[in-house]
């Protein structure tokens, strides 16, 4: 099987399953791609002075912002991962609530059907 592997100039190997007749848009890699470096900016693109008024950072900012306190301090730790965790847990609580509500409704229906059957007999 190895003989059929054809790598291009970047060492990428096209998929053995799907070989496209023309330039393949999708390629199967053995060695994963790294994100390519951003293209270099031309000097005049780099930082035109005309945008300085829109900058959100002030060069002459003197005071340190006060350290966050309470909940802000906990949630802001470790790159704010706790914020993501809170969001996911909220979604999970919603899904669990739906699961329980559906169960309750099914049980109610089951009891009703059971009753109506025993009344018939």
């Amino acid at each position: 099987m190895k003989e059929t592997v054809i790598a291009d100039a970047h060492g990428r190997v096209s998929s053995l399953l799907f070989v496209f007749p023309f330039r393949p848009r999708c390629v199967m890699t053995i060695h994963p791609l790294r994100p390519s470096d951003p293209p270099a900016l031309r000097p005049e693109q780099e930082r035109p002075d005309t945008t300085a008024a829109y900058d959100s950072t002030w060069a002459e900012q003197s005071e340190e912002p006060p350290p966050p306190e309470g909940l802000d301090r906990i949630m802001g730790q470790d790159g704010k991962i706790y914020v993501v965790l809170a969001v996911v847990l909220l979604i999970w609580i919603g899904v669990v609530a739906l699961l329980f509500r559906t169960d309750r409704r099914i049980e109610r229906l089951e009891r009703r059907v059971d009753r109506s059957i025993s009344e018939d007999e």
Partner: protein
Amino acid sequence: MPSPAQPPFPVGRRLYRVVRGVVVVTLTGILAAGFLGQIPQLDILEQSARNLYFHVPMWFALMAATIVSAYHSAQYLRSGDRIRDLRAREAARLGLIFGGLGIVTGMVWARFTWYEGTGVWWNFDPKQSMAAVLLLIYGGYFVLRDAIDAPRTRGRIAAVYNLFAVVTMPFLLYILPRQMPSLHPGGEGSPAFSQTDLAPAMRWVFYPSVLAFLGLCWLLYTQRVRLAWLQEVLRRKALGAAHDERDGDR
């Protein structure tokens, strides 16, 4: 006139409640541990290695659902009990749902990890393509069911199709993808369960996660089966009432 027998109740309510409690508690813990637990720092994967806890269990759930579905199809062919047909249908439905989630989560994972910066959403990874084929096969099961009106014929034909469908599952998910270069582990042996592939700290989250998602799949499947059971009881009741009325007319 023999009144149509009531089908036996599909599941013990106590068992269901116990599993539900365990699944809710375990999955909550896994969500927290999945985000906060220690993982090895690896190139390319970086923090996305945590996806292991959520993406891979989808496929365990799919495999379990297809096997359960095939089991009930075989039982339907043996007994002709309609509840078996309904169980097979609902298990296949859960398989499709979890398989679809597995495909989508895999696409997002690959797009922003191995294919970061390339814009490639679908990279024709062998496992990905084969999984898509498997989902199409199970989609065909539902198309087939919807195409047949007579319940007994539908049940029999769908059950036979389902038995053929499950046979393709291990080939499409395991055997074929491991013969080809892939992003997925497995070409070099048995991944995740071998001694060296998975960091010990991650095992404590990954294995419970697989079990918990299997439990979640079972809960949702059981909900659907209970609804199908209700429908079946009402259907038989309506049939019985129709019979009684006809007998009274005579």
